[in-house]
C-alpha cells in the first residue's frame, strides 16, 4: 500500500515538473491570443529563453541574471513578432514560424561561437541553477502518515520556478478577469473596432499582451535549461511550445482549464517515461520511440476531438486595419 502511494506521488510530482514549462507557455499564449495575436513562436521563445539563461548563468554564475537575460531576450522576440503582426499587419503564423527557425539556428551558431561545444553551453553547478526548495514544515510534517508524505513529496520539494508557474496561472486569471486592462485586452481580441472607437489604442494593448507573453516564456525557458537541467542543449524545447498551444486550445483560452490540460500532457509524458523498458501484458515492451512520440500523438488526438474554431477569440489572428 505504502509502495503504491509512493509510486503515485512520485508520478504526480514528475507530472508537475514536466508540466511547468507548458504552463508558462500556455499562459503566454492566452495573453497573446486573447488580444488577437496568434503566437506560433512560443516554441522559439522557450528555446531562446533557455539559451539566454544558460549562457548568462554560465558566464556570471548567477541564475537570477540568467532569468533576467531570458526575459529580456524574449521580450525582444515579442517585439519583433509584435512589429510584424501589429504594426505591419503581416501574417502572424509566418512571423511565428520565422522566429522559430531563426532561434533554432541562432542558438546553435552563438553557442558554437561562444562556447565551442557543438551547440551546448557549459554544465552548471548547482549555485548557478534554480534548485528544488523545501517548503517550511516539511521536516516536522514528514512523520505524519499519508498527509506527511503528500506534503513532503508532492507539494514541497519542487523547484522555485514551479511554484512561480502556479502563481502565474492565478495572476493570469486575475489580470484578465478582474482588471480594467484585462477587460480591454479581451475586448480587443473579440472586436478591435469597438475598442478603437472607445478611444483606446488597439496597438498599445496588443503590444503589452505580447510583451507579457515574452516575460512568461522567458521564465519558462529559464526553467528548462537551468532549473530542470544543468545546461542548454540544442533544440531542447522539443515541441513543448506547440504542445502548450494545444493545451491552450483545449482549455478554451482560459487559464485554469489550460493548466489542467498542461497537467494532462505532463502526466502522459511522465507515465510514458515510467513505462520505458517495462513489459506490459499482451503488448510486451513499448517501443521507446512510441513513448517519445506520445505527447505529439496526444496533441493531435486532442485537437481532433475538439472543434476549436468556434471558440477562439473572434479577432484571433486577424490583423486590425482601419477601413475606409
Amino acid at each position, binding site marked *: 500500500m505504502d509502495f503504491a502511494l509512493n509510486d503515485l506521488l512520485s508520478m504526480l510530482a514528475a507530472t508537475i515538473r514536466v508540466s511547468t514549462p507548458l504552463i508558462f507557455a500556455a499562459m503566454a499564449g492566452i495573453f497573446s491570443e486573447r488580444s488577437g495575436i496568434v503566437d*506560433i513562436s512560443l516554441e522559439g521563445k522557450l528555446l531562446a529563453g533557455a539559451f539566454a539563461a544558460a549562457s548568462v548563468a554560465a558566464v556570471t554564475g548567477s541564475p537570477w541574471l540568467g532569468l533576467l537575460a531570458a526575459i529580456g531576450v524574449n521580450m525582444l522576440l515579442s517585439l*519583433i513578432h509584435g*512589429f*510584424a*503582426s501589429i504594426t*505591419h499587419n*503581416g*501574417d*502572424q*503564423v*509566418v*512571423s511565428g*514560424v*520565422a*522566429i*522559430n*527557425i*531563426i*532561434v*533554432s*539556428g*541562432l542558438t*546553435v*551558431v*552563438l553557442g*558554437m*561561437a561562444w562556447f565551442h561545444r557543438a*551547440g551546448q553551453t557549459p554544465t552548471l553547478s548547482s549555485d548557478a541553477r534554480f534548485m528544488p526548495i523545501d517548503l517550511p514544515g516539511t521536516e516536522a510534517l514528514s512523520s505524519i502518515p499519508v498527509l506527511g508524505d503528500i506534503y513532503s513529496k508532492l507539494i514541497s520539494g519542487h523547484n522555485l520556478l514551479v511554484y512561480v508557474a502556479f502563481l502565474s496561472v492565478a495572476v493570469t486569471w486575475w489580470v484578465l478577469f478582474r482588471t480594467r486592462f484585462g477587460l480591454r485586452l479581451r475586448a480587443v481580441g473579440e472586436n478591435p473596432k469597438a475598442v478603437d472607437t472607445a478611444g483606446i489604442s488597439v496597438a498599445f494593448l496588443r503590444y503589452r499582451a505580447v510583451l507579457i507573453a515574452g516575460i512568461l516564456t522567458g521564465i519558462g525557458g529559464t526553467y528548462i535549461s537551468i532549473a530542470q537541467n544543468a545546461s542548454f542543449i540544442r533544440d531542447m524545447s522539443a*515541441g513543448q511550445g*506547440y504542445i502548450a*498551444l*494545444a493545451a491552450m*486550445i483545449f482549455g478554451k483560452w482560459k487559464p485554469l482549464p489550460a493548466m489542467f490540460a498542461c497537467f494532462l500532457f505532463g502526466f502522459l509524458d511522465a507515465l510514458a517515461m515510467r513505462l520505458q523498458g517495462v513489459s506490459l501484458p499482451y503488448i510486451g515492451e513499448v*517501443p521507446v*520511440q*512510441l513513448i*517519445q*512520440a506520445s505527447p*505529439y*500523438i496526444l*496533441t*493531435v488526438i486532442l*485537437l*481532433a*476531438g*475538439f*472543434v*476549436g*474554431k*468556434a471558440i477562439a477569440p473572434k479577432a484571433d489572428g486577424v490583423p486590425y486595419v*482601419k477601413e*475606409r
Partner: protein
Amino acid sequence: MSSTKQPLPAWADILLIPLINLCIAFAVSSMIIYLIGENPLEAFKVMIEGAFGTSEGLGYTLYYATNFIFTGLAVAIAFHAMLFNIGGEGQAYIGGLGVAIVLLALDQTLPFWALFPLALIAGMLFGAAWAAIPAYLQAYRGSHIVITTIMFNFIAANLMVYLLVNIFIVPGSMTPESRVFSEAAQLPFMHEILGWLGITISESPLNLSFIVAIVVSILFWIYVWHTRWGYALRAVGFSESAATYAGIDPKKIIMVTMLISGGLAGLAGLNEVMGVQHKLMLDFVAGYGFTGIAVALMGRNHPVGIILSSILFGALFQGGAELAFEMPSISKEMVFVIQGLIILFSGALAYMSKPWLEKLFSLFASKKHSETEVD
C-alpha cells in the same frame, strides 16, 4: 493613417520588393556574422564561390535546389488554398520511406524503367498519406493545420528511427540504415546522363529528379491557372463563402490540395533516397521542408519564382557548407538563421518597404510631370 500615394507598378511589386526583402535579410545576417567576429563580406564571398564558382559546386547547388523545388511547390499549392503546410519535413521523410519500400522489395526483380515510375508514385502516395490526417482534421474538425502538421513532423522523426533501427537495418550492422539498392533502383546522376550525350561535367549529387522537378513545376502552373480544378482551388483560397456559393466544396478542396501538397513534398524523398543516397537512412530531409516555406514565400507561390528561389537557397546551402569548412567558427546552422530571416522579411514583413517605395515612385512621377509641363 491612409497613404495618398499612387499604387506601385507591377514590376516593382513582383521583383523589386522581394529583392529588397532579400537584401534586408542578408544585412541582418551580416550583422550576426560580424557579431561572431568574422568578416561578413569574406563570408559571402566564400559562399558565392562555393555555390557557383566550380562546376562541382554548381551541381551541388542544383541538387539542393531540386529538393527545394519539391517542398516549395508543396507549400505553395497549400498557400493557394490559404493553408499553411508546415509538414513538408515529415511528408518528405515518409515519402522517402515509400520510395525505399518499393525499391527494397522489387529492386532485384524489375528493371529501372519499371522501378522509376513505381518509386515516384510511391513517394507521392506516402507523402500524401502523411498529410492526409492533418488535412482531414482541418477540413472536417477545424483543427489548426499548423499545429497538427508540426506534430506529424515530430511523429515522423520518431517513426523513422523505430523503423530504421528495428526493421530496415542491415543484420549485424550498428548503423540505422537499410542496405544499398541495386543498380536498377538508382536514379542516374546528371553527370552520367550528360556523359552519355558526350558532355563532361564534374561529379555531384545532381540527378534525374531535377528533370522531374522541372516537369512537375510546369504541371503545377497548368493545374493552378489553367484548369477548372485550379480555379476551384484559388476560389476556396480567396473566398470560402463565394466558393460554396459556386457549388465548390471547400472541405474536399482542402483535402485534395493537402494530399497533392504532401505528394509534392514526398518527391524530395525520391531525390534523396533513389537519386543520391541509394539507401534509406536517418535525417535525409534535414530541414528541407522548412526551406520550402521560405522558397514559396519568396517565389510568391508561383513556379517560376519557386525555381529561382530554390536555386538561391541551393546556393545558400552549398555556400554554407563551404563556409563551415573555410570558417569553422560559423557553424552550418547559420544557413537556417538566414533562411528564417528571409521568411520573416519576405513573409511577415514583406511590405515593410512599400511606403518608402511609394514615396520614391510618386516623387519620380511628379518630377516627370513637372518636366513635361515645362515643355
